[in-house]
């Protein structure tokens, strides 16, 4: 668990550097695709970008997500590294640019024709691309899985830019294919080297996710509103029994609200910047959060967390009931009811760690794990 906290912190550093927004790694179903679209749509609404750009991003996402759904498993699934079979979707914003990245496993034998297609698309002018699109549309599909060619051409047309890509070798027969789309905003040009740096950064982030079994990462500003959207998306992402889903949901709500309540703003940010991570392995679900807190609150918070971890379940029940009916501590920040609730619902100790950020702020990492076999 401590390793996972460290990894969450590394993710935050890697992502914050690039202002990365939202990552999902896992199996892609129609429901999950829909949830990702909804969440991004809600986040895009806050952006000042013009509607035309937003629409473009949205339709590129639709194509990209469908591409993953279609190609998420290589034709023969005998990959030793099972974690690599998952698809990945990333949306990030750096300066004024949006980067939409999708990733999935491909068979090595399929790389040359795919490369050829991508290079062809990248060599065509706007009008040529339009003609090529029509040609593929009327003459039929280019791959036996269907539609891939068309989807790629469409993404290139909508982005108004080249399709950037990279293959990462997994083993002798498989590679991971990253497709990186950067829609043109206004007429300004973005340095290609910078674009390739962002792909490499995503590959680093991806390997961190694989190592830690992280499935979903939200990096950004936390508010009541972003929590609502995130909660909606999470509900769609988690595929497990109803009782476990409920339990996870309770813990997630308290952890998210903890960021909104306690999170401090940095000088550059108006809302609460932070990170939210969900992970899953055979035994547990992991929920991790990270956010800034004022340095002068750190000690009190650490003591409270230590104390809550020391309580037995019975003692926690007593504490919970006591706080529930004690209206003298109505300042909700101070009750600690949320932490107690997380401990009670997860039945596991909280993991926590504090990192120094600057002379005013610390970064608090909090982790909770939930047994998959609870109450079943």
């Amino acid at each position: 668990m401590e390793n996972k906290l460290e990894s969450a912190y590394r993710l935050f550093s890697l992502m914050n550097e690039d202002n990365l927004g939202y990552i999902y790694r896992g199996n892609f179903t129609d429901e999950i695709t829909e949830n990702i679209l909804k969440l991004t749509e809600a986040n895009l609404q806050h952006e000042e970008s013009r509607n035309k750009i937003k629409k473009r991003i949205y339709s590129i996402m639709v194509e990209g997500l469908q591409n993953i759904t279609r190609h998420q498993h290589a034709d023969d699934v005998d990959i030793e590294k099972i974690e690599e079979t998952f698809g990945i979707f990333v949306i990030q914003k750096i300066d004024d640019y949006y980067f939409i990245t999708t990733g999935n496993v491909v068979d090595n034998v399929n790389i040359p024709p795919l490369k050829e297609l991508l290079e062809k698309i990248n060599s065509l002018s706007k009008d040529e691309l339009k003609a090529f699109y029509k040609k593929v549309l009327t003459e039929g599909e280019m791959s036996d899985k269907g539609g891939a060619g068309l989807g790629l051409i469409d993404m290139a047309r909508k982005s108004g830019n080249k399709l950037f890509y990279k293959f990462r070798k997994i083993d002798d027969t498989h590679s991971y294919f990253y497709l990186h789309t950067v829609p043109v905003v206004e007429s300004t040009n973005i340095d290609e080297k910078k674009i390739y740096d962002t792909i490499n950064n995503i590959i680093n982030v991806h390997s961190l996710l694989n190592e830690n079994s992280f499935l979903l990462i939200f990096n950004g500003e936390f508010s009541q509103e972003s929590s609502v959207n995130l909660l909606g998306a999470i509900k769609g992402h988690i595929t497990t029994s109803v009782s476990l889903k409920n339990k996870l949901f309770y813990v997630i709500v308290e952890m998210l609200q903890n960021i909104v309540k306690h999170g401090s703003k940095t000088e550059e940010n108006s809302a609460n910047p932070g990170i939210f991570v969900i992970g899953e392995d055979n035994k547990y679900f992991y929920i991790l959060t990270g956010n800034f807190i004022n340095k002068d609150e750190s000690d009190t918070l650490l003591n409270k967390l230590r104390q809550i971890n020391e309580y037995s379940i019975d003692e926690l029940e007593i504490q919970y009931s006591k706080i529930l009916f004690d209206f003298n501590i109505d300042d909700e920040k101070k009750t600690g009811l949320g932490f107690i609730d997380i401990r009670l619902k997860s039945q596991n100790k909280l993991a926590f760690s504090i990192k120094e950020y600057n002379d005013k702020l610390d970064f608090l990492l909090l982790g909770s794990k939930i047994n998959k076999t609870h109450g079943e």
Partner: protein
Amino acid sequence: MEKLEIQATDMTPYVKLDKENGEFVIAEKSLPENAIEFYRPVLEWLDEYSKNPNKDTIFQFKLEYYNTSTAKQFARIFLLLEKIHLEGKSNVEIHWYYSKDDMDMEHSGKRYEKLLKLPFKFFAY
């Protein structure tokens, strides 16, 4: 007494407090980060109601989810209801609904029952 009805949102519950028809319901989700604000009108209404309540008050809690911030406001509601119940002004009964898959919700209701002098009835759906 005028009824109070609030439609549900993604984060706040459906509320219906209707003295005339004897309907007292809080339903769906209650997840506001700051529940004090949301429950203020509810508590004000109940405070007014407690001056001259119906002979019977069946209060239904049909929550899908609620957070700890809400839990404290529920405690306030229960204390108000407990008062009129113990004073003999109204026979109060709490009807606590929970999904049969949600043992945490059942447990939360039982916890309140243990801490209060109010009759609770539990309904799994």
